[in-house]
């Protein structure tokens, strides 16, 4: 480990994993934590429990704001464990001088998203700190969900599973980059930020045999696939051309030298479902307006265990690795 924490340690990729395992897991080690799932399964498998902090800049961006993000983020982590989001906490750290009107806007947007999930905020905390101590506002939400489908886990994926993605990838990360200062780009691209519980519920209602679900937030789809490959000790082979990416996300990737698979998402998730249910799952997802591009992207093999392989249409293959470093535009 480095002597000081760098920005890269929060990237959702390799440095982040190292920090978590060498500092937090070392101290907090227990069986539940070690499963490394999106949400912890507690209380004899009946409840899912998760927490997440939100520090996004800018606070308002195309398609969402920090409030919507704070509810979606935690609720989605619960939904990914087959749980229905029920109770949330909301804790905010506000920089002095922050406009009340903006705070109000953020909270209204949280309320709207809670309704979509059918969840309520049952406890909260407010701190105000001197100017410069935080960047405008940081929000933490924790959530408890009721597990409606037991046994969903990223540790049990096998050759009987097919990998699916629910929509075109990378919109959130790309939209945030466009909105950042210093990049000076414009586009009509919107963040994919969305509550995923309705989609998960539709899949469960149709009795789709789901092995694992994970929302592809920081670190993007490539981080999810690599985590799965490693946790389930499998090789995931993905047809590169089958991964849906919109033209605008492609444009931003070209401009900045990014890979869409490394960009963050807030309403995009990866599914491992049993082969026989794959087509049906895709059909169900396509019933949602944001998911018209839902598709299968890969399968499980044992060629390179714990690795993800991207296959091209011209017969070559390469590794898709966990993103590392601070996400910087590639210029040279």
């Amino acid at each position, binding site marked *: 480990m480095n002597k000081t924490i760098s920005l890269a340690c929060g990237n959702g990729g390799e440095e982040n994993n190292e920090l978590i395992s060498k500092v937090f897991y070392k101290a907090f080690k227990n069986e539940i934590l070690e499963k490394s799932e999106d949400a912890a399964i507690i209380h004899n498998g009946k409840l899912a429990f998760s927490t997440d902090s939100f520090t996004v800049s800018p606070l308002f961006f195309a398609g969402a704001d920090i409030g919507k993000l704070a509810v979606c983020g935690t609720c989605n982590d619960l939904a990914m464990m087959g749980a229905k989001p029920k109770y949330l906490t909301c804790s905010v750290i506000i920089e002095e001088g922050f406009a009340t009107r903006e705070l109000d806007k953020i909270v209204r947007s949280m309320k709207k998203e809670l309704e979509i999930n059918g969840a309520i905020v049952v406890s909260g905390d407010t701190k105000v700190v001197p100017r410069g101590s935080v960047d405008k506002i940081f929000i933490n939400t924790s959530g408890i969900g009721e597990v409606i489908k037991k046994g969903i886990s990223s540790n049990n994926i096998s050759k009987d599973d097919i990998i699916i993605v629910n929509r075109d990838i990378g919109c959130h990360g790309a939209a945030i980059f466009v909105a950042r200062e210093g990049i000076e780009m414009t586009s009509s691209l919107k963040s994919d930020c969305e509550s995923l519980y309705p989609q998960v519920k539709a899949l469960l209602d149709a009795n789709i045999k789901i092995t694992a679900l994970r929302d592809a937030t920081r670190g993007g789809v490539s981080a999810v696939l690599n985590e799965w490959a490693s946790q389930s000790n499998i090789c995931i082979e993905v047809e590169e051309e089958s991964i849906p990416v919109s033209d605008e996300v492609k444009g931003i990737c070209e401009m900045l030298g990014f890979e869409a698979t490394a960009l963050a998402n807030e309403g995009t998730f990866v599914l491992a479902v049993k082969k026989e249910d794959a087509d049906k799952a895709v059909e169900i997802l396509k019933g949602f307006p944001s998911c018209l591009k839902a598709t299968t992207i890969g399968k499980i093999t044992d060629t390179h265990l714990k690795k993800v392989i991207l296959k091209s249409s011209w017969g070559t293959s390469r590794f898709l*690795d966990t993103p590392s470093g601070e996400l910087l535009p590639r210029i*040279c």
Partner: protein
Amino acid sequence: MGLELKNLYDDFRDGNTIKAYAKIIKEDAKKLKNQINIMEVCGGHTHTIMKYGLPQLLPSNIKFIHGPGCPVCIMPKERIDHAYVLSMVEDVILVTLGDMIKVPGSNGSLQDARSRGSDVRFVYSPLECLKIANENPTKKIIFFAIGFETTTPMTAALLDAVIKKDIKNIFFHINHVTVPEVMRELIDSRDEHVDSYNNKIDAFLGPSHVSVISGSKIYEEFPRDYNRLVVVSGFEPVDVMQAISMIVKQFIEGRCELEIEYKRLVTYDGNLKAQELIERYFDKRDLFKWRGLGNIPKSGLKLKPEFKEYDAEIIYKDILPIGEIEDHKLCICGDILRGMANPPECTIFGTACKPTSPIGSCMVSSEGACAAYYKYGNLR
């Protein structure tokens, strides 16, 4: 048929075209007498070759040698230490491009400097310096300029704007380098490796965007004086496959010429206006040290003496460290940049040296050969 922007991306990455070239190259390569070693000078090509898995499509008698054309990779520690020291000056904002902030110097990288309190910023465009200078009138903005011929005119254009607008708080630390000098060094080196170079590089895949600025004329000497053919190629996988096919055809037909595959953007003369700007503001240094390659005559640029009031290297002369720094003993970046070794031959590749904890510079930039091997794997 009209041209759409999409054609310029999709058609030059088209799987069928790549397959068709793979087939042509395979057939033609049967007629080759000897193995041919093609050095792609440029890191952009290395990136394309590894990302698209092109070595997997080539017959065994065609090999790539990865060249030194990555401005981040070749930056010696001495220069990074300069940037580090400058960033630590109290009223300085140090500005640079992309990956450069990750490269470790002797005290750490610019990223480390930032986490220790200095104001280091990466920008998408050098022109952002104008904005930063305007917003921070009491600060001194130092642009740590890196890059080959491609990026040099943009630094010149920034200086041009600074002078025209009479901006007093933007300064430059110049680390621009040039391609022909290092190519010459690689085949005409006078040190103990000389035989190996001569035997190794048979042909050059000429850089894409360096050539957009400089024109193909800068490579004329290589077929003429060194018996090394050059095909200037675009960065897309179809471009690279077509260029390789052109190289193989030259060998079969016994030719040794300078050809352009990347005709949609490269001409013989290049961008003359950009060249004039470079001429106006820059002189050649007698020597510039490249990481792993050592001092190469006339391979680096500096500001002309009449612009010394903008030259951070002169203004901060008293605090900038001097003296040479040895590279890490186990790191073979030097050999890799010389085309003498491939990344997996290094004992610390993927173990002590990874993109998250790079020891050698080739592991830092995403265009470095080691980073490309680590990231994409060398699957066959």
